[in-house]
């Protein structure tokens, strides 16, 4: 399999004109003569798109071509107002890179053939489904929104590998802050070229191109389906034809999609309205300075520097803000695994519930560290810590203050606990007898009773000791 990813870029304006790229506006309200392809309108290239292309090219270890040209890809379709798409064909801006992905514990290298700049098409909207509608409605707001197309070599062998590659690539785009990675809004789209070969054969068979893959789940399902379809076809003596197939999410099946246009006769030629793009070393060096640490580098560093397991590292590095949050907390409370556990369970749950990103978390890394320190020095129990966590996440209050205000400080006073222990034992003769007869799991019952009386504030370790000592007398 080879994958083609189209990533919408986080620019303010379109690729060749000043229209806004904002998603969700009134249809055709972000259009002008250039992006509607009206006669006489000329394209002027957006510098930021070139910055982003170089940035991604560097992150994917590509050669950055000092000179690249734009080309016209000609085809008729109602979402393409000019009758051609301005893309890059023979001399793209980036070539020959790679992306490493973790397959289990081993690293696998997927080669990236090219990264090029191109414009998006408009959007066709149908009132029923695309198959049954008697007409299409066209919105050109998306027309000429800048895209980077990232084309992999056919190095991907299984649907699982495809998903790993796509997830890492998406993380990279988000880390670089050049694409929001939103699949539902179409900011990150994937087409797949699928071909099979008999065991032992070196050359891959004819490929079919799959489109309409808009979630990781549907990508995996459609790849599974298509691989099986091709293998069955060949087993029955059939031949795979080169064609575009559309995945139907409801049926889980790929269909041949035949436009009225003969496919793949795009008659590419150099775009006469745009001159060759020249990028000098200084420009590339400037962009290189803005490169952040990339997800896979971060994963490896977190494993080495903090001794965290791969599972933790994958979660923490999946979001740049979350990774930063973790590191800031560890700086103050240097127990990486404890911090990681609290982030992965408590913090992520609260952030998800509140739909807040890690960098906007009301509970700051300093406050999380403060909370963990309160638990560590025995001021509060883990249980209390977990109980006040949602409130800390909502209010952004200092854990120390909240604990003091609410009187949650753990009680480690032996006399105080003992008096409650005595009271509970005195009123539970039946349970005491059963415990003494060997039903030791009743210890939990006593702990619960005491904790209830003490509003959860008893030092659990001390309480256990006192209870056991008393019960075994």
């Amino acid at each position, binding site marked *: 399999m080879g994958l083609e990813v189209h990533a919408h870029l986080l620019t303010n304006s379109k690729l060749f004109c*000043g229209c806004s790229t904002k998603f969700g506006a*009134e249809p055709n*309200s972000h259009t*002008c003569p250039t992006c509607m392809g009206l006669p006489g309108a000329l394209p002027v*290239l*957006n*510098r930021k798109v070139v910055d982003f292309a170089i940035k991604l090219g560097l992150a994917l270890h590509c050669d950055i071509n000092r000179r690249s040209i734009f080309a016209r890809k000609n085809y008729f379709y109602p979402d393409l107002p000019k009758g051609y798409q301005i893309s890059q064909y023979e001399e793209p801006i980036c070539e020959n890179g790679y992306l490493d992905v973790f397959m289990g514990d081993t690293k696998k290298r997927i080669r990236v053939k090219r990264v090029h700049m191109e414009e998006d098409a408009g959007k066709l909207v149908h009132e029923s489904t695309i198959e049954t509608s008697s007409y299409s409605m066209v919105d*050109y707001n998306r027309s000429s929104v800048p895209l980077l197309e990232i084309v992999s070599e056919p190095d991907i062998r299984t649907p699982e590998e495809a998903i790993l590659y796509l997830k890492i690539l998406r993380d990279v785009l988000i880390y670089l802050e050049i694409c929001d990675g939103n699949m539902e809004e179409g900011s990150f789209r994937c087409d797949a070229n699928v071909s099979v070969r008999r065991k032992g054969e070196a050359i891959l068979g004819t490929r079919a191109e799959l489109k309409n893959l808009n979630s990781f789940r549907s990508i995996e399902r459609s790849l599974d389906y298509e691989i099986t379809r091709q293998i069955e076809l060949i087993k029955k003596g059939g031949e795979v034809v080169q064609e575009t197939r559309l995945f139907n999410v409801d049926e889980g099946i790929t269909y*041949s999609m035949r436009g*009225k246009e003969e496919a793949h006769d795009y008659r590419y030629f150099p775009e006469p309205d745009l001159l060759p793009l020249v990028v000098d070393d200084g420009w590339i060096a400037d962009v290189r300075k803005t490169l952040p640490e990339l997800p896979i580098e971060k994963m490896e560093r977190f494993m080495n520097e903090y001794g965290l397991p791969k599972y933790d590292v994958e979660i923490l590095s999946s979001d740049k803000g979350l990774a930063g949050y973790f590191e800031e907390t560890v700086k103050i409370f240097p127990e990486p695994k404890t911090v990681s556990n609290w982030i992965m369970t408590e913090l992520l749950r609260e952030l998800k519930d509140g739909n807040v990103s890690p960098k906007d978390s009301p509970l700051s890394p300093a406050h999380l560290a403060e909370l963990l320190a309160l638990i560590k020095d025995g001021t509060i129990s883990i249980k209390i810590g977990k109980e006040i966590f949602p409130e800390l996440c909502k209010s952004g209050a200092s854990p120390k203050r909240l604990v003091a205000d609410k009187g949650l400080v753990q009680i480690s006073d032996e006399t105080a606990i003992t008096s409650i222990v005595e009271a509970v034992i005195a009123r539970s003769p039946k349970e005491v007898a059963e415990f003494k007869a060997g039903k030791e799991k009743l210890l939990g019952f006593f702990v619960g009773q005491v904790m209830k009386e003490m509003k959860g504030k008893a030092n659990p370790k001390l309480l256990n000791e006192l209870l056991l000592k008393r019960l075994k007398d």
Partner: protein
Amino acid sequence: MKITKDVVEHVAHLGRLELDPDEVELYTVQVDSILEYMDQLNLLDTEGIEPMSHPMPVVCVLRDDVAKDSFSVDASTQNAPEKKGSFFKVPPIIEID
């Protein structure tokens, strides 16, 4: 002949041109003679010469990423043969087996 009727029909289809049979005959001959004329270029020795995609020795100019006002929806859709709300309305195009 450098070109056949099939090619003319194919190219006409790609350009969404409807040609009647007489026109196909006529254009086949005409396009063929144009291509033969252009063939004279092949007499030149182009060994070691860079392909030229653009005739002028200048490079691309760039603009800053600043969003500007677009046309109004009314202005943008005023030439539409058919409209539906703010949308252009067009015939469907996909055929599925």
